[in-house]
């Protein structure tokens, strides 16, 4: 009985892993996967339904939707990974420092995070993205700044719980320098739940980016990212649903795969 379940969720994890690997391949070598150029506008073939020649159909410019999605994976992944890295590193360092130093620093930090938490991330992102010129950079900046509180909270919690473990107290009492303890023991021990969170954050960054482009703050580039594609295609849902459906499915499938992997990671790291 138990074995069957294990293999079922393992199978899900394996499928997710394969899908993520495929998307990675698309991002790295889109020309290898896509049958057409993502910018080629065949105006004779507007709004064609999915077929063998056009797997995901064609859009309102006559572009091959499949090829656009394949090429669009690069920017989508960049948005996801860069936001998690920036937000995670800044948030992680802040949280770790607050937790490790403690005292007044920690109190001030806590207050500041509480203040930040009263302003929902999407509004913060909206304000930043609206004020800066729309670009990949400003979208990444907007998303990462708005995710700092959550990362720093988790990191701080971890650091505090590890700081109070006996072996840290011991190395403290035998005179090891603070910085050494911090890096050697505390940081190295607290990265695992943080990793889980960052994995899940990758998915949610892509979702936030698509929300921003829905609100009109997307970027118009040669090759649109998935969120932009989805939000621009939504006006054609009735007439040519595939322009919107496939980018939507790809976003959902990718974020789902990330979440399944994140879940597995959590199970492995923290088997409760």
């Amino acid at each position, binding site marked *: 009985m138990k074995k069957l379940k294990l293999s079922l969720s393992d199978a899900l994890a394996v499928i997710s892993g394969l899908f993520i690997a495929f998307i990675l391949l698309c991002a790295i070598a889109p020309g290898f996967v896509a049958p057409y150029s993502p910018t080629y*506008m065949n*105006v004779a073939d507007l*709004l064609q339904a999915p077929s063998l020649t056009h797997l995901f159909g064609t859009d309102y*410019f006559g572009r091959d939707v499949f090829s656009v999605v394949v090429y669009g994976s690069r920017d989508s992944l960049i948005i996801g990974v860069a936001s998690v890295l920036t937000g995670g590193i800044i948030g992680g360092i802040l949280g770790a420092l607050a937790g490790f130093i403690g005292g007044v620093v920690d109190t001030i930090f806590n207050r500041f995070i509480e203040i930040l938490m009263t302003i929902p991330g999407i509004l913060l992102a909206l304000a930043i993205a609206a004020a800066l010129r*729309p670009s990949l950079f400003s979208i990444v900046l907007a998303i990462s700044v708005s995710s700092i509180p959550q990362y720093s909270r988790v990191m701080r919690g971890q650091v505090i719980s590890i700081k109070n473990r006996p072996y840290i107290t011991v190395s403290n009492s035998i005179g090891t320098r603070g910085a050494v303890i911090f890096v050697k023991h505390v940081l190295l021990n607290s990265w695992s739940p943080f990793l889980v969170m960052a994995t899940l954050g990758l998915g949610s960054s892509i979702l936030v980016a698509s929300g921003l482009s829905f609100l*009109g703050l997307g970027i*118009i580039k040669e090759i649109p990212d998935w969120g932009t594609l989805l939000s621009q295609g939504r006006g054609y849902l*009735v*007439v040519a649903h595939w322009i919107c459906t496939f980018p939507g499915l790809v976003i959902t499938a990718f974020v789902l795969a990330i979440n399944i992997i994140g879940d597995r990671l959590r199970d492995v790291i923290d088997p409760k």
Partner: protein
Amino acid sequence: MKNNLASRILSATLAILLLALTVAGCAADKPSGTASDAGTASAAPEATNGTRAVPDETADPAPIDAKGGNLVFALATTPDHLDPHRAGLAVSTRVTNALFDSLVALDENGGFVPYLAKSWEVSDDYSVYTFKLRDDVKFHDGTPFNAEAVVFNFERLYNPETQATGNITSLFSGFLSGEALDEFTVQLNFSVGSPSFLTNLARFAFVSPAASDKYGDQFTRNPVGTGAFRFVSYDEDIKLERNPDYNWAPEIRGHQGPAYLETLTYKIVAEEATRVGSVESREVSAAETVPPQNVLSLRATPGLQVLEKLTLGLPYTLFYNFDKPIWNNLNVRKAIRAGVDIGTIVQTLYLGTYPRAWSIISPGLSGYDASLENKDHYDPEAAKALLEAEGWLVGADGYREKDGERLKLHYFDNSPNREKRNDIAVMVREQLKEIGVEVEVEISTDGYNQLVSIRGFDVMGNSFLSGDLVSSLRGNFYYTEGGFSIAHLNDPKVNAWIDQVASEFDPAKAEVIYKEIQQYFDENALTLPIYVFPYTVAAIEEVTDLNFDFLGYPVFYDTYIK
């Protein structure tokens, strides 16, 4: 044992579910109750509208010729103001036109028709206008419309506290003073005569002086005019009701007396899919600005109709920034024009629902030069040759360079993607890539970014809705003398022509000058006209006699629900 526990947990879950549903019921009732308390004015009229609507449409065995009904109209954007002197957006005018009247009206050819003014006289130099007003007109608050009210409105327009929009104040530049000669005769004096003053006057709405004094800057949330509909509330929706005393419609309308519709409600539905869907599901009676791809399918849907009217003024045009040296080269301008396949762009994006623009002014205005039609300049080979001749040679990456500098254009456009203008940018970028020109598209929502970008742009699109050519040309586009031109076009010839036409009172002579201007723009490839915007309304088939005025604004006065 384990099974037993499982079923216990299940039944407990069901219990929670029931509990939660009960809570849901209460919670659902409660907030809507408090909302209607808080909503003050909106709650009561809404309830009565609801009960009135039913007999009207179904049960009531009213005589067949009884016209009436309640119209719900979905707007695509939010009106900025309901104070007609402050409103700068076309969408606001779609509401204020129902609430307010003007001195003169325009017939379908742009001719003048008496409205609140019975008659008028114009001095020989067009600087003094004398109007005889109707003596039976009352504002919605019961105060009379008279010569004093006309003078008050002009003074209000130029009082800084009103915060009037430049779009309206610029219509009457040169206004000196207004005088009430007697109760129903008013004289307006201008420093310089203008032939377009009467046309502009057809756009100028009169507000109640008493209400303006009473509400101050809150007048915009409490508009009081003389129109066929009066204001009820603006909470979520803008609600208007029939003005039962209305008896001063201009002759060009289909009937006299009060409007047929009992209520007129505007809903703001920004999301395209929702707006179109709401007509299909009959949640609203009509919705404006239907996207091209839906126009075709809605036309084919039984029970629905699509109404449209081409708008007037300057069609959607791509402007160049003449501060940049590159645009002062005729061959480069011609090359860019030859590189952009406007016909394909318009056909691809608008699927045949928007007509292509051939000139800098829209068809339907007197002075439009129809000889420019079907003069397509698209010829990529010629474009390449022109650029080669100017020394722009293809570099290693496929883009053209000259003296180590790349031929790169900064194309600025606004967000959101209104009328698929962002998509035009994308297509232009791809087409110009074919002739070796790089286009960098920037889309922005923010005023600051607009300002910065406008200073640095190479290509930018815009359009202007107006029935008056002089103010269109004099506006922010082509005229540089004492004004501000988006295009930074500083062409003495163009300026001189515009000056000339601005003081030309003979329509036939003005027409000649207009045609000269249009030919000049075409010969010199000064701009790229793209499309003429048709204002589209999708409606359920019961909506009858929803008309449009000369400028393309909907007129709800004759409308009724069958």
